[in-house]
């Protein structure tokens, strides 16, 4: 019975998110009518790209269960961007910058995966440690100062738009979500991920390579963070050591808001993308209303707790 109802889950989640989004937009329209223009759409999607990539990785890791969580996403975004820029400074050919950034993210993610799968360290403590190590390294290696010198040919991609939609969103975030959606729904590998998250013991008993799949997922989460780091480079034209700040909280909130069950095995990536757009719209709206940015972290934190409490209550009512 529960399984039957959960099929309606994704539609329900999307409906709720769409309603909330309209509420946010309406609120913004009432408070500041001038804020709603096509330029705002571009801004929102531009800001959404980095969070979307980080949140997708977070969602996949959580979906696969085993108390999976990636608190280091923000640190990975910062460190992969910084590592690529430092490599460039050290004489790496500029053409390799995108590859370096993505590979750096992949390696950092695989390191998390190794800690979790090979050494059986709890994901929350392993990625908490790497979160501080990665984000700390990004700051320490640069002394906290931005790293200029991103090659010029990269900037048009980072700043360009197509029909008002930012290029990074069309070419990186959207394909990543479509691909993830297709893999999750239509391939055996995707079914494995759900099976692992739903019941790891049974998944192992039917012969699913749980550890290898999980290792790959942490790697993918890191790689997506690396792509996010690359987007930040192409957008800002410099490597900012604190670009990933608060992403652990925001990506987690987006994943939960998007209907991913915290213990895994339930939820889809479509809701996550919708949740990202909702979150960024909310943040942009607050900025437009001149609310201090310090409020953002509090509101996102409160939202995270609220979503999980609401989920608990709705489970009790079923």
């Amino acid at each position, binding site marked *: 019975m529960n399984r039957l109802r959960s099929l309606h889950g994704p539609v329900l989640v999307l409906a709720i998110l769409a309603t909330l989004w309209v509420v946010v937009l309406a609120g913004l329209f009432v408070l500041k009518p001038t804020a709603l223009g096509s330029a705002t759409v571009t801004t929102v999607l531009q800001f959404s790209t980095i969070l979307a990539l980080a949140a997708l990785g977070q969602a996949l890791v959580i979906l696969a269960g085993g*108390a999976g*969580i990636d*608190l280091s996403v923000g640190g990975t975004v910062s460190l992969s961007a910084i590592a690529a820029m430092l490599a460039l400074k050290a004489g790496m050919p500029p053409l390799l910058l995108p590859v370096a950034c993505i590979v750096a993210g992949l390696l950092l993610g695989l390191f998390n995966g190794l*800690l979790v799968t090979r*050494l*059986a*360290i*709890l994901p*929350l*403590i*392993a990625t*908490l*440690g*790497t*979160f*501080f*190590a*990665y*984000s*700390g*390294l990004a*700051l*320490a290696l640069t*002394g*906290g100062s931005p790293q200029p010198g991103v090659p010029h040919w990269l900037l048009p991609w980072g700043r360009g738009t197509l029909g008002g939609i930012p290029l990074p969103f069309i070419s990186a975030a959207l394909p990543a979500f479509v691909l993830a959606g297709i893999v999750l729904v239509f391939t055996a590998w995707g079914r494995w991920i759900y099976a692992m998250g739903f019941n790891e013991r049974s998944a192992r008993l039917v012969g699913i390579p749980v550890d290898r799949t999980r290792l790959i997922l942490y790697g993918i989460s890191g790689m997506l963070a690396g792509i996010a780091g690359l987007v930040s480079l192409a957008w800002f034209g410099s490597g900012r050591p604190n670009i990933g700040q*608060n992403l*652990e*909280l925001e990506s*987690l*909130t987006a994943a*939960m808001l998007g209907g991913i069950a*915290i213990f895994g095995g339930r939820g889809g990536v479509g809701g996550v993308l919708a949740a990202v757009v909702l979150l960024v719209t909310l943040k942009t709206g607050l900025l437009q209303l001149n609310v*201090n940015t*310090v*409020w953002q*972290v*509090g*509101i*996102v*934190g*409160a*939202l*995270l*707790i609220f979503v*999980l*409490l609401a989920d*608990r209550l709705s489970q009790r009512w079923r």
Partner: protein
Amino acid sequence: MHRLTQATSLLTGRELILLAACVVITIAFASVSPVFATPENAATIMRNSVELLLIGLGMTLLLAMGGIDVSIGVVMGLSAIAVGRALGANLDPALAAAIGPLTGALLGLVTAAVVVLGRIPAIVGTLGLLGVYRTAIFVVLGGQWLSGLPTGLTEMLGTSLVGVPLSFWVIALAYLAVWLALRRTPFGLHLLAIGNSEEKARLAGISVTKVRFAAFLISGMLAGLAATFYVATYRNVEMTTGSTLALDAIAAVVLGGTSILGGRCSLIGTVLGVMLLRILQNGLLLIGVPSLWQTVVTGGLLIAVLSFEALAGRLSFAKLGWASR
């Protein structure tokens, strides 16, 4: 059962190794920096350890039952603001001192309500609360520091009692209280049982909700007590007060031999973990490592210890006390 009641011998292998590590890095730093091995610097290290020790005691309880609180440093920050405001309003120092633990307990109540009653995983719930509290600190402080607070509290805690400052007695009392609760009451036994397996503890008739609720409450109260000491020592409160304490505390407690998988803990280990961490941080600063590297070192140490434990466990080095006892 054997596992729970054991570990009463004064020092286990793990703790001896930590003690040795403290001695070794002290000698190493002393040979490099002329300032390191001075009585003044020793006093600085001790003073800098107080808040971490108190928060570490609470974190030991949390980790031992398979919980965690990443917002605990900011809980101390908020409590410090309360103490600071009370002092600034010329409240009696004794009352101001009590406001710390009181605020901490109140915030611990919030954490417990969210995590235990709301049945949200501790890491996710406290991460959310961390965001909320960070905004709260900004709102309460209004972007300004509290500074130049009255010296009443500092003098009160410095009062000599049987030749030793009052602050020492308070810390010793807090340690003793947590030790008694952990080792000499059903609460401690239940806490460790929950850490071993929440499901089994529930089946054994332990009121899991009550025990977990109490642990978060105690942890909050200890963070509040830490806030009292913080204000007494520094007599100012900033936006960033306490922001690194949660990581430091988790690292110190894990270093001390308390298992994040729950069911195993050592209070002496936590004390030694705190000392080791603070000696390391102080020494690195003195030999000229920029302070930005501190989180890298702490985070790296945490990963290294956990990895080593996992590897040692695999090689069944259980005798050394590094693996699951």
